[in-house]
């Protein structure tokens, strides 16, 4: 068969993304219809920048979900090599596709191991969308749980915590990655221990949040706390405990799921690198908000420090935090790419964008097509997140 023309390639790619377009249009139609009732999210649809950003982000989110776990959109298996298609240019026909019931073209060509670039790009989005927001959430939990008391109490506690935050920030990120994300380190169990420490923060956070709010009503608090803590505790133990690794606290039949060591270490280091910055932001916000009269009012009615931090200060810091959250997901995406670029952590055949760019760059002056699609994909996602953050900032500052 003849290779496809560029027009045909674009049409076919457009059709391949069909489910994503439908999901996007539905999201936008619903959101715009109800935008006046949706608070800050609704206001986003008043800003062009915000809408473009949101569209880009949601495009990749839908692509990741539909293409990742649901396995649609992709045309070929991301790991299968088809002989004869090594480094072939976009639109190349797959030989013998009909007998093997394969899609008949490599829409964006083949990479240096004769795998489909298009499918790898789609699959790669799932790696980012699954890790980046979650890692950012964890970084926020750590940053908030430590930053609030540092800003609220100040004094020695603040000095100490800020010193540690600055310590981590003074570490060149790449050096840290090189030191942390190696098979040898994984062997010593350090990432698992770090995970055990870092992942406990959401538990502390939830427990303190509920207790400070409901401690006056033990009848409501106790069952609620037990319920929440059992679920979170099980999730926590399942995550950190891995049969055969250094930490195996849960017996296998209770261990809900396993996180592969490679992913865990990547996850941990990304959280570790991001938390100090979040800490600093939360700290300065807390220092600002604690001077407000409503905080004084809470103090004069004898509220506990954690109630004030979590229910009086935190909700009023949400604007800047949401904006930073979007920016930080983008930054985490870049960090994940950096890790992939240096071949750290993720398995070598992983379709994530950083690794594919790294593989593609070696032959860059001869073959562009393996490196360019993941590069542009990463660019558009991070750009979307930045635009979204900008739109949110603008809208939250209005009226």
């Amino acid at each position, binding site marked *: 068969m003849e290779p496809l023309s560029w027009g045909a390639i674009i049409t076919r790619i457009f059709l391949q993304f069909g489910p994503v377009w439908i999901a996007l249009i539905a999201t936008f139609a619903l959101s715009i219809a109800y935008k006046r009732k949706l608070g800050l999210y609704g206001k986003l649809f008043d800003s062009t920048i915000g809408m473009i950003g949101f569209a880009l982000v949601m495009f990749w989110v839908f692509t990741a979900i539909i293409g990742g776990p649901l396995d649609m959109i992709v045309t070929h298996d991301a790991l299968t090599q088809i002989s004869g298609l090594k480094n072939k240019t976009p639109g190349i026909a797959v030989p013998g596709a009909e007998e093997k019931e394969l899609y008949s073209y490599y829409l964006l060509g083949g990479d240096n191991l004769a795998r489909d670039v298009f499918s790898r790009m789609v699959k790669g989005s799932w790696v980012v969308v699954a890790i980046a927001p979650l890692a950012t959430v964890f970084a926020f939990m750590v940053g908030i749980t430590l930053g609030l008391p540092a800003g609220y109490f100040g004094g020695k506690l603040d000095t100490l915590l800020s010193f540690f935050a600055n310590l981590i920030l003074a570490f060149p990120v790449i050096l840290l990655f090189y*030191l942390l994300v190696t098979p*040898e380190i994984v062997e010593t169990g350090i990432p698992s221990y770090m995970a055990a420490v870092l992942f406990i923060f959401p538990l502390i956070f939830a427990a303190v949040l509920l207790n400070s709010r409901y401690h006056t009503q033990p009848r409501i608090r106790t069952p609620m706390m037990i319920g929440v803590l059992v679920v979170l505790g099980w999730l926590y133990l399942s995550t950190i405990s891995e049969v055969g690794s250094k930490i195996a606290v849960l017996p296998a039949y209770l261990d809900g799921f396993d996180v592969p060591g490679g992913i865990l270490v990547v996850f941990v280091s990304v959280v570790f690198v991001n938390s100090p910055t979040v800490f600093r932001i939360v700290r300065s916000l807390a220092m600002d908000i604690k001077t407000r009269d409503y905080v004084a009012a809470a103090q004069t009615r004898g509220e506990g420090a954690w109630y004030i931090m979590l229910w009086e200060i935190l909700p009023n810091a949400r604007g800047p935090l949401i904006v930073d959250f979007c920016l930080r997901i983008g930054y985490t995406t870049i960090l994940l790419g*950096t890790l992939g670029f240096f071949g750290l952590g993720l398995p070598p055949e992983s379709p994530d964008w950083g690794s594919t760019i790294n593989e593609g760059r070696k032959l860059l002056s001869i073959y562009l097509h393996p490196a360019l699609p993941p590069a542009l994909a990463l660019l558009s996602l991070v750009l979307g*997140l930045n635009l979204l953050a900008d739109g949110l900032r603008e809208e939250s500052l209005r009226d």
Partner: protein
Amino acid sequence: MKQFILRRLGTMVLTALCLTFIVFVLTNLAPNLEKVAKNQGNARMNDQEVHSWLEKRGYLAPLPIKYGQWLGVLPGYTHQADDGVITGRCINKDNTAQTAPTFCGVLQGHWGISTVFRKSVSSVISERLALTGWLMMWVMIVMVPGALIIGVFAGMREGSRTDRSLSTVSILTTATPEYVSGVIFIALLASSKFGISPLLHEWGWIETKTLFKGTATSAMKEITFINFFLPVITIALYGMGYIARMTRASMTEVMTAQYIRTARLKGVSFPAVVMKHALRNALIAPFTVIMLQIPWLLNGVVIVETLFNYKGFGWTLVQAAGNNDIELLLGVSVVSVVVVLVTQLISDIGYVYLNPRIRIS
């Protein structure tokens, strides 16, 4: 002020000690040592042999002691083999067991020997650092004025068309990490098959096959526009967007300040308002950002040096880390940590200097 600098220096030293200790711990973990032994000695050594190999080289001493030795505050290890030959940290081809000094650590200027380059760490680092110094210098020359100009122009009239387009450009550059922009630049400007180079070549505008070079290896000997433009612009662009956005934010804030209205309503013309009243106040925040951006640039340097095959400090870091070259890795971290801390110090002092409100009180 003096006291402030002293306190900052104290914190700096403490931070540097903590960080190097962390690096020390991480590089001296048992699996890493085993890897070193097998790399350096013999890949098929059994556990026994690994153990004695490490013991002979002082690797098995307790961590704080090893750290003290490396630092030069504890006497260097010595090891007497069965045949009576004494080896030790401070014993090398110039110094025998008798003449060797007791202390030989970083404080004495002994940075150890790099196992990858088989040269002393200090010479490797100074050589590579000089190369990276050139790169950084050009990056700063391109990035700082560019970013400030973009930021000031965008923030001067908030919401104007200039503002919108410049802001979009800066968002775009912050969203493009070096490994993405590098790839795109090479594809567009330095590929003999794609982008604009073939066209320019065809039209006879350039004599070479490509407009720019896709590698910067030749820049290690002689820096030219052709071989250095792409690495420099790749790093500069990523940092530029961030500084420009900071400058813009600071500028818009200043432009809405009361005292700018005062100046305007006392009849100062718009250019004079910007130059005389707004600029100095608006540059306080970005200055701190620029200095704090330097550790960030270090990241970019590592990526770009790898991507463009420019064998500077970043490239060395990758080599050292990839091969668990302990002494070199420690040296690299000391240097980068010191760079980071010094820039933080400069940023603090500069902030105080630029801001009269703090300077005098």
